[in-house]
């Protein structure tokens, strides 16, 4: 072979050599109409110190074969969007290409469904490197029939391979299959198309190819896609074919600002290195506006190469971060490729048939040979998913999502651009000067909901009082809404209510003091609401969750605006994916935490606080079975999600019969969404209560639960913020003394005291009404004096109370309140519903009497008032393993029914819906089944005759409980796998109970490592530590003296700031035993 002297070097070998040297090859998209300008551009690119490839991009007339128009435009001096290669001919082209010098490869990029003329001219000019493909240069580019494109490409590919060989050069083709329309095509199809086109090239004689992939919307998914691409290429391409992977910087609507465009470019270089791509084709900062100048291209090439080197260094420091797993993208891509290859041995023919049958289908592509049934969409997590798969052999991964509108389309197209413009404008230019001593303490806060916010609030308040010795920098990370988090995020149905009265909610650690609202002193939710939205506010009532979300954002605003010396807080809207430890940080001398975010970057911090809130768990076996069952029996539906805001309830059609599993707080949300949310209204009824005016669009709602009743109505609040209950028998001191003697049995040792306490209030309140306040007080004192050693039985207390006046019957067991229908049988659903209505009316009457004046609700309220004492008994292994298990299984749900109930309004609505026939509860001891014979779900009560109902949809309204072992959060999974955190196993005297909650120490709540050591550089607050602690699902502080919510946040803030004072350090891991009580064992 004689290599023609004028030809540029071989692209494949050049890239391989660069990869061997650990360098990313960078390449522009560049094309000018005038030869001298094109040549100057190539010279400039080749002259860079980076490893570059020169590009000749052709103009649009040449692409569509309209060479005369191209020539005419050049002659008339009209500008073109690229180099008219055919029009200029081989001689001029060869001269232009030579301007890149002898060491830089040159590639011709076009976009033509029929490249024969282009390849002929190239070959004549001694060029053998180009790009495209029979599909990728046809369907997204014009109207040439696919069959013509395949035929033309087959011929052209063979021609280029042979002609180049004759010229002594190796031809190279890059598939453009990784781009397609540039946006909204899920990665699996891009990967599949790249591989298929390279197979097509190889089959038609190409011995050197490159597989492309264009950066999409989620860095994590992109890494997966690149891994899949490499894997499939290894698997499927003949081993003799030289290949590498080329990444394209984002090909969709580009950021408009220079900074935003720069940021996106850098992320693509970072991605190229992480994903193992060997070459990167860049975009410039003018992409959104105009064809770039040469200088702009050079800037982009330099920036990309520099970022690639930075990333490469980072990876060398942390070799564990590999190039990711291919996961879902790989599965889908493989399914597509396999399906296509099965259609014919000839890849070109197989591609044709595949499009004809819709086995391949490019979303939003207008070409007549494309079926056009597939749709891609961007998920909340930023990943591109299929919302419609048409006839492709795939499963749609997101639910069908209403009709596409211009507005929605525009939002999706602009998403990446706007995200980067925004981020770049927020990221103040990094300080160039070396940071001044002392080094800041860097804190990462994972979770921006109320718990995270409560820590920020205390950090600011404390720093405002006393500036920290060292600067403190906090990065607060939340993928949903910083300040509100997922549960309280402002985008959700306005019908979802809080279940704490607005007056009892605050996020400030101190009351308003007349000065401006600020961390440490600010309004309660009720106070803020009355001012912020005077027309709609109901400060005496219960706020919608969206209102609380807005309040939280208001508090966050004050936290961020506080600007206290020494403290910086940076909110980052992203999901934390993984953490690992890096080299010792300057801040503390301990290994730093590196937290990788889903948007691609890494934050490095000295301390990590985990406040990630409600878990999203894997479905359990039963749930998976139901889901599969529903999928196999369309239009049957199984709706599951950890909160109503996450459920696609719109999908439940009007008139359908929908079962609701669980009658707790989520049930009320579901009902609100299906009634109020569908245009129904509640009007005052004659004779009190409410009447429901249906919209006609509601389904028939069939709820069921173990007890057959909804949560008990919350008593009208009659206690001021300052009110603090003083227990007579169930005192913190008594419980502390009992706990000191070793783990307790809740049912036999603790519960009797609690029940006695409730009875004192029940009987005492009745005495107050019958005799007077003195009688109540004297009774209480007597009870406390008489029963010091053993808890009194309900009967004994009743006898004692009789001595002071008529006090009525005591409550003989706690569960009586929560299980009124235990052991009952009903002859018909109607009978059950009648009794249910009577029962709820009675409960409502109790609620109206209030939580101080009403005996029953006052007694129930004890459970809330003594919550802290219960926690002091239960938390950190205060119960024996067996008792702990029963505490969670039995006491916990009963306590929830009694003490976490909704406002009276909700119970009234329940009654109105019952009367209107919209709500048809099934009965106690209900069982849901997937009935294979009927092909639908059914539900039936074990205590009600003839209660079986067939369901068109089943909504799972149970709130998943913390269990790290089935948590889907990648961060938590990773920490657990690495042994940095572990579940709390309550073990004692040979028994053991794995609670599934995150094991922590007592204040300030460090996680306990798998090896038993304490992870002192980390803190955990709230729901992840549920089960180690009890009742962490509290999303707000209370006005008045601090409760646990504020105290816990403050303890962490204090511990963090103590770290900011320089001090000598010892080893990090010490045995946890002493500090954590039994939590560590």
């Amino acid at each position: 072979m004689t290599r023609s002297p004028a030809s540029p070097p071989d692209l494949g070998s050049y890239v391989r050599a660069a990869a061997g040297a650990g360098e990313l090859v960078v390449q522009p998209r560049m094309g000018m109409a005038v030869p001298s300008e094109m040549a100057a551009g190539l010279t400039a690119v080749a002259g860079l110190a980076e490893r570059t490839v020169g590009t000749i991009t052709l103009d649009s007339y040449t692409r569509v074969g309209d060479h005369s128009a191209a020539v005419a435009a050049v002659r008339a001096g009209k500008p073109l969007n690229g180099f008219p290669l055919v029009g200029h001919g081989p001689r001029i082209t060869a001269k232009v290409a030579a301007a890149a010098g002898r060491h830089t490869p040159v590639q011709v990029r076009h976009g033509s469904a029929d490249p024969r003329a282009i390849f002929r001219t190239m070959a004549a000019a001694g060029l053998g490197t180009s790009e495209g493909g029979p599909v990728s240069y046809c369907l997204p580019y014009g109207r040439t029939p696919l069959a013509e494109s395949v035929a033309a490409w087959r011929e052209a590919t063979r021609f280029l391979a042979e002609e180049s060989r004759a010229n002594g050069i190796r031809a190279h083709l890059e598939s453009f299959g990784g781009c397609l329309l540039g946006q909204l095509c899920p990665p699996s199809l891009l990967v599949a198309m790249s591989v298929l086109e390279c197979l097509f090239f190889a089959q038609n004689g190409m011995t050197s190819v490159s597989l492309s992939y264009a950066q999409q919307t989620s860095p994590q998914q992109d890494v997966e896609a690149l891994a899949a691409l490499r894997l499939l290429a290894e698997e499927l391409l003949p081993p003799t074919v030289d290949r590498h992977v080329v990444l394209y910087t984002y090909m969709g609507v580009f950021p408009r600002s220079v900074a935003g465009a720069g940021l996106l470019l850098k992320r693509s270089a970072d991605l190229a290195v992480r994903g193992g791509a060997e070459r990167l084709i860049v975009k410039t900062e003018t992409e959104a506006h105009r064809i770039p100048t040469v200088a702009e291209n050079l800037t982009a090439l330099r920036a990309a190469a520099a970022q690639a080197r930075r990333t490469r260094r980072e990876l060398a420091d942390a070799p564990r971060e590999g190039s990711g797993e291919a996961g879902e993208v790989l599965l889908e891509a493989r399914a597509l490729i396999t399906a296509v290859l099965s259609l014919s041995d000839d890849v070109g023919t197989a591609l044709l048939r595949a499009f004809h049958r819709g086995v391949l289908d490019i979303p939003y592509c207008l070409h007549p040979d494309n079926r056009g049934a597939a749709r891609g969409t961007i998920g909340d997590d930023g990943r591109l998913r299929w919302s419609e798969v048409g006839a492709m052999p795939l499963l749609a991964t997101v639910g069908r999502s209403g009709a596409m509108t211009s507005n929605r389309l525009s939002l999706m197209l602009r998403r990446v651009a706007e995200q980067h413009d925004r981020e770049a404008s927020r990221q103040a230019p990094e300080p160039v000067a070396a940071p001044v001593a002392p080094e800041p303490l860097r804190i990462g806060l994972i979770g921006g909901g109320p718990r995270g916010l409560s820590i920020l609030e205390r950090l600011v308040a404390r720093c405002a009082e006393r500036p920290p010795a060292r600067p403190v920098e906090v990065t607060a990370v939340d993928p949903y809404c910083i300040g509100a988090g997922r549960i309280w995020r402002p985008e959700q149905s306005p019908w979802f209510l809080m279940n704490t009265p607005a007056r009892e909610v605050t996020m400030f650690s101190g009351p308003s003091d007349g000065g401006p609202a600020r961390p440490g002193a600010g309004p309660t939710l009720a106070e803020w609401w009355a001012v912020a939205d005077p027309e709609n506010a109901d400060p005496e009532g219960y706020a919608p969750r969206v209102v609380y979300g807005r309040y939280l954002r208001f508090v966050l605003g004050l936290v961020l605006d506080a600007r206290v010396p020494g403290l910086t807080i940076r909110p980052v809207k992203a999901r934390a994916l993984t953490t690992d430890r890096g080299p010792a940080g300057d801040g503390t001398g301990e290994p730093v935490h590196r937290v990788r975010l889903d948007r691609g970057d890494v934050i490095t911090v000295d301390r990590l606080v985990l406040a990630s809130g409600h878990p999203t768990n894997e479905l359990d076996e039963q749930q998976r079975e139901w889901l599969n069952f529903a999928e196999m029996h369309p239009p049957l539906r199984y709706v599951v999600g950890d909160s109503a805001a996450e459920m696609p309830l719109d999908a439940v059609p009007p008139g359908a019969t929908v079962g609701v599993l669980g009658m707790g707080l989520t049930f009320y949300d579901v009902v609100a969404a299906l009634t109020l949310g569908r245009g129904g209204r509640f009007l005052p009824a004659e004779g009190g209560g409410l009447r429901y005016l249906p919209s006609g669009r509601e389904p028939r709602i069939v709820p069921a639960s173990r007890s057959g009743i909804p949560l008990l109505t919350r008593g009208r609040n009659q206690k001021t913020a300052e009110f603090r209950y003083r227990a007579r028998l169930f005192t913190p001191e008594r419980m502390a003394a009992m706990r000191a003697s070793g783990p307790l049995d809740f049912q036999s040792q603790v519960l009797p005291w609690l029940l006695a306490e409730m009875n004192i209030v029940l009987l005492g309140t009745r005495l107050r009404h019958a005799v007077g306040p003195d009688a109540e007080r004297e009774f209480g004192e007597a009870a406390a004096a008489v029963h010091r050693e053993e808890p009194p039985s309900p009967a004994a207390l009743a006898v004692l109370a009789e001595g002071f006046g008529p006090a009525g019957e005591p409550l003989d067991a706690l569960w009586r309140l929560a299980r009124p229908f235990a052991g009952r049988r009903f002859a018909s659903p109607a009978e059950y519903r009648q009794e249910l209505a009577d029962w709820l009316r009675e409960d409502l009457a109790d609620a109206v009497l209030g939580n101080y004046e009403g005996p029953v609700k006052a007694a129930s309220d004890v459970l809330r008032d003594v919550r802290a004492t219960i926690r002091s008994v239960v938390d950190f292994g205060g119960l024996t393993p067996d008792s702990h298990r029963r505490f969670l299984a039995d006491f916990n749900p009963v306590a929830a029914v009694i003490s976490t109930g909704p406002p009276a309004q909700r119970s009234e609505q329940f009654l109105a819906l019952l009367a209107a026939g919209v709500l048809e509860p099934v009965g106690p001891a209900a069982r849901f089944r997937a009935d294979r014979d009927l092909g639908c779900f059914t539900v039936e009560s074990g205590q009600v005759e003839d209660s079986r109902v067939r369901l068109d949809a089943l909504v799972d309204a149970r709130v998943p409980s913390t269990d790290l072992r089935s948590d889907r959060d990648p961060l938590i999974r990773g920490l657990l796998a690495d042994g940095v955190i572990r579940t709390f196993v309550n073990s004692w005297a040979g028994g053991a109970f794995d609670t599934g909650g995150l094991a922590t120490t007592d204040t300030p709540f460090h996680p306990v490592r798998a090896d038993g050591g304490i992870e002192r550089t980390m803190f955990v607050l709230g729901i992840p530590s549920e089960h180690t602690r009890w009742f962490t699902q509290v999303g707000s502080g209370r006005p008045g003296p601090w409760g646990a919510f504020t105290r816990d946040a403050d303890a962490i803030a204090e511990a963090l700031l103590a770290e900011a004072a320089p001090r000598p350090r010892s080893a990090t891991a010490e045995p946890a035993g002493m500090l954590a009580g039994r939590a560590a064992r």
Partner: protein
Amino acid sequence: MSPTRTLTPYPLRPAAAAPEPAESRRVLLTTGSSDAHTWNLVYLQLLLEENGHSVLNLGPCVPEQLLVDTAQLTRPDLVVFSSVNGHGHLDGLRAARALRAERSTSDIPLVIGGLLGISPDGAEQRTAELLAAGFDQVHSDGTKPDVLLSYLAQLPATCTERAAA
């Protein structure tokens, strides 16, 4: 074609669920013979349909002859020429001349917009040339497509009658 298809490029179809506006217009949507970009077309079609108009979307790379033939056949109330690849002024000139040369299409309202050149230089001259070639409106780069809605709203009623004739 699959029944689930929502973005049909070829058939002229009435707006699906959109509220019927006072005047529902028939729009022929096209681009330059060299222009491969389609997101602009997809977007404009949705926007116009949502506002009660019916749209015939010719898809990418529309040769002049196809444009003229379709305009003769369908007699639209308006032709919207959308181009972003930088050849809009060149392709637009040829399209306008072809439409205006044909008697039956010489009076159909015709507007153009998108990103019409490869640089801001010479925008005024481009606009003048395009107007002279027969465009009724030339929207400078960056103009929001909403202007089409007000333009459609004020088109004389005769257009619709002519279309029905």
